[in-house]
């Protein structure tokens, strides 16, 4: 099969040198050529001077999971030469800076090595270290444009937009771009066998990251109070909320804000502010990562037991503890499901991509208020911080928030005596907001309380309330977004996954099916699991549970909540911190199927594909 619009390449540089803009320039240009593309930024947990990688995958069929192998690697960071040259697929290309003689570390048989003297060219063309470093990045973009036949029209259009108000920068960027482009054109036969050809497959799409999508969702859902403490990789979510709130929520006349964004002193405080604001009647939310989830757990228990809404976004990173702050993982599933001491259970939503981040965020606010309990949006670094290609977001102007059972003064006037924690159906109580009516007054507490919100230490009165809470969460299980099921006639096995794994799993599913594996696929989207999830788990003899953590946490949740015995659920686990690849999923399932004595499959290599699990090297 030809490799027009179907290949991958990556650029290895040093962070804080401005390569980021060159990389997104490349990706965006390809996107504007109408070709499906994705970019994964693999960056270090510091601000300047450490190795960083940017992986770009082009796929005409729209498979945009992280690529399993690299056709071309641009190696500009001596510290990682060894890793980078090893990452080139047999027969692939390595592009390096030939300002210096080819370093031994870069020599390798079976690959083609291309040198461009980026350094010297930029030293000659530009003044000053900073400019030279920056322009060097643009010049490799130029070389790639030539090698992969990126449309220079598109590129210049973008540069013109970007530097519309910065003439000088515009020129130097053009110049640098040209340096690389012309050199490549002159010295190599461009384009390479794998390259780009304009398509029309991105017209209705956008490039969006999940944190921006969540922030946007919060603005559109009418959230007015956000409280947070900065933590990678969630920070840009609150920044996005601020950006759009500043755009759309500021009173033109007075310059006053129709929102409050509070940078708390820590995550405990942020969680408390979210609950306090929701208790007073606002739609409130926060975003954090694993360490913040641990710190919020006492307050989450209060929210659960005192029945206070609140939206909590966990942009997961690699744990445990501080872990790898700039790597992805799905390691907080079990923690979140039952967060806090005592008997608790929480609503959680699992977006698979930035598009879903937007829609599930608005839905999270509705669920939180309807069920009067904390709701988690379980995102991750890959979804949250990388640009994904997805359909344009749409908004239905008929949407109105579901505020749940909130009694106003009029309704209160009707009731004989308001009982805050009594069942009004499906385990859901009615609540009141402070300031509305003396009749609505009640006492909120995390200590033992009766259905009338009075203090108790009595076994029956205590149980009446916690039993209702259990019923309430069961009701919620049917209200959360149901699983997305991809059925398959005569399927012999089921594949189950969630969140960011989806992109790789659907690609793997395609490969598996085309190589004869009759598999059905379920992606869970909400917790507690509803009947449809339980049904799916009874259909097959064997399931493969694909997730990004060491301990098969989704599998554990399925065991606890659906009763599926472990031996029916084969774990497929990738937890090195990098986005999942289809190759890994295919290899693992194929290997397992072999282990499970099923006839070996056509077209599936015996050894795992290189790079599939080997991380950035």
């Amino acid at each position, binding site marked *: 099969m030809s490799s027009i619009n179907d290949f991958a390449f990556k650029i290895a540089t040093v962070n804080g040198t401005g390569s980021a803009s060159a990389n997104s320039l490349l990706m965006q240009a390809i996107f*504007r050529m109408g070709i499906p593309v994705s970019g994964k930024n693999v960056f270090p947990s510091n601000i300047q001077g450490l190795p960083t990688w940017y992986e770009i995958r082009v796929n005409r069929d729209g498979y945009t999971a992280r690529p399993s192998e690299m056709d071309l690697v641009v190696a500009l960071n001596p510290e990682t030469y060894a890793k980078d040259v090893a990452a080139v697929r047999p027969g692939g290309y390595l592009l390096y800076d030939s300002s210096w003689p080819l370093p031994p570390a870069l020599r390798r048989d079976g690959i083609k090595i291309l040198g461009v003297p980026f350094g010297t060219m930029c030293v000659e063309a530009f003044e000053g270290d900073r400019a030279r470093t920056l322009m060097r990045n643009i010049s490799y973009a130029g070389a790639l444009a030539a090698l992969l036949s990126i449309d220079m029209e598109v590129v210049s259009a973008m540069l013109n937009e970007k530097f519309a108000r910065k003439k000088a920068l515009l020129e130097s960027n053009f110049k640098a771009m040209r340096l690389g482009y012309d050199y490549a054109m002159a010295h190599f036969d461009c384009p390479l066998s794998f390259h780009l050809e304009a398509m029309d497959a991105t017209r209705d*799409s*956008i*490039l*969006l990251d999940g944190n921006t999508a969540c922030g*946007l969702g919060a*603005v*559109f859902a*009418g959230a*007015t*109070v956000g*409280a947070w403490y900065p933590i990678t990789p969630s920070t840009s979510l609150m920044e996005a909320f601020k950006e*759009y709130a500043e755009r*759309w929520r500021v*009173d033109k006349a*007075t310059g*006053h*804000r*129709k*929102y*409050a*964004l*509070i940078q*708390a*002193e820590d995550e*405990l*405080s942020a969680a*408390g*502010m979210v*609950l*306090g*604001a*929701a*208790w*007073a*009647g*606002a739609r409130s939310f926060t975003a954090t990562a694993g360490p913040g989830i641990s710190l919020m757990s006492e*307050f989450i228990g*209060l929210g659960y037991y005192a029945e206070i809404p609140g939206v909590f976004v966990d942009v997961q990173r690699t744990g445990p503890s501080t872990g790898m702050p700039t790597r992805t993982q799905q390691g907080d599933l079990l923690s979140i499901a039952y967060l806090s001491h005592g008997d608790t259970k929480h609503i959680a939503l699992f977006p698979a991509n930035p598009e879903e981040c937007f829609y599930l965020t608005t839905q999270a606010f509705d669920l939180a208020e309807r069920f009067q309990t904390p709701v988690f949006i379980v995102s991750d670094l890959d979804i949250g911080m990388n640009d994904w290609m997805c359909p*344009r*977001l*749409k*908004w*239905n*102007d008929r*949407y*109105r*928030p579901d505020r749940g059972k909130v009694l106003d003064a009029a309704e209160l006037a009707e009731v004989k005596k308001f009982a805050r924690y009594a069942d009004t159906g499906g385990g859901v109580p009615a609540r009141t*907001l*402070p*300031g509305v*009516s*003396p009749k609505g*007054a*009640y*006492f*909120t*507490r*995390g*200590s033992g309380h009766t259905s009338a919100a009075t203090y108790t230490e009595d076994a029956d009165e205590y149980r009446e309330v916690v039993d209702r809470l259990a019923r309430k969460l069961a009701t919620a299980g049917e209200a959360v977004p149901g699983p997305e099921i991809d059925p398959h006639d005569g399927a012999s096995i089921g594949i189950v996954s969630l969140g960011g794994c989806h992109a790789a799993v659907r690609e793997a599913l395609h490969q598996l099916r085309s190589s004869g594996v009759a598999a059905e696929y379920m992606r869970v989207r909400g917790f507690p699991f509803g009947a449809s999830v339980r049904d799916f788990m009874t259909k097959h003899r064997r399931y493969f549970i694909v997730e990004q953590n060491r301990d098969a946490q989704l599998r554990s949740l399925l065991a606890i909540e659906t009763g599926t015995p472990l031996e029916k659920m084969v774990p497929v686990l990738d937890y090195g911190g990098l986005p999942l690849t289809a190759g890994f999923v295919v290899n693992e399932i194929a290997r397992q199927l072999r282990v499970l004595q099923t006839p070996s499959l056509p077209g599936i290599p015996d050894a795992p594909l290189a790079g599939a699990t080997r991380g950035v090297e």
Partner: protein
Amino acid sequence: MTSIQKPPVRHPSLQQNTLGLTRRDYEGAMSTLCAGCGHDSVTAAIVQAFWELDVPPHRAAKLSGIGCSSKTTAYFMKQSHGFNAVHGRMPAIATGANAANKDLVYIGISGDGDSLSIGLGQFCHAIRRNVNLLYVLENNGVYGLTKGQFSASADIGSKSKGGEANVQPPIDPVLLALTLGATFVARSFSGDKTQLVPILKAGLRHKGFGLIDIISPCVSFNDHESSTKSYRFTREHYTEMTAVDFVPLRREITSDSETAGASAVSVTMHDGSVVRLRRVAEEYDPTNRDAAYAHVRALQQRGEIATGLLYVDTSANDMHAVNRTVDRPLVDIPFEELCPGSAALDSLMEEFR
């Protein structure tokens, strides 16, 4: 003879305030604290203050952490929403609630353990944000509810009921608040209702974070000889810096002499009501942060406890003013004003290409 029946804090008089409410309408559930606990006296003073200020009970919100002191929010104003948060975390709840609805009257009740140990960070940051909240710290030098361990406000040498002397230096919430830039700082004593009520009223009217550190003895674990937080010790070492007199908005101020003069400063609150501070200790200037700090320290070195409204700054902006939020409470803004709508989203999409 059997269960120790403590009637809810009662006031014989059925006199009505301008809302036509009696003090009884400002009372709460029956106290479950020990007979004689200082906290119950504070509760009584709070009832009096809210009643005198004509605050509609349902327009007030009572917040607290965990502790005997924090239980007291249940013992006044049963017609107000109340919130027992988790231990030491009331400031966060109050900050969030205030962010959502700035128009309620917020009173937070805490203890020395709740505020100065587990809650110290939140306490300090609520001061920094100048959240519009009256923060009542019922200070007894011990963890009452967990049976009398020393708290961070216990003085060195003060003895526990078991006879053990405290060895850790105390944290003085008043000096701490002054250092952190608090805009209303007072200290009083649960046993001195005449001083307490007007200070509470001034604090409730203050637009910003108001701290009242109230020495409120724990009769069960810290009211014995050789305790420096006992009724007796407090009475003996009590020095009043300023006597407070609160002049509500509606009672117009007739003559200058009534408000100012050599021995008095008068401070106009945001709502126009006036607090008159009569200097008891001569030379004392309750509008000078550094002077206040120095005075409190000086008295401390003499083994005296400075009380009264020690510092007030009505010029500082509260959290909302600082963040420039709209005048309406955020909870009152209709969804239509909050959601940018489909057109806005559609055009935004172009920026993502």
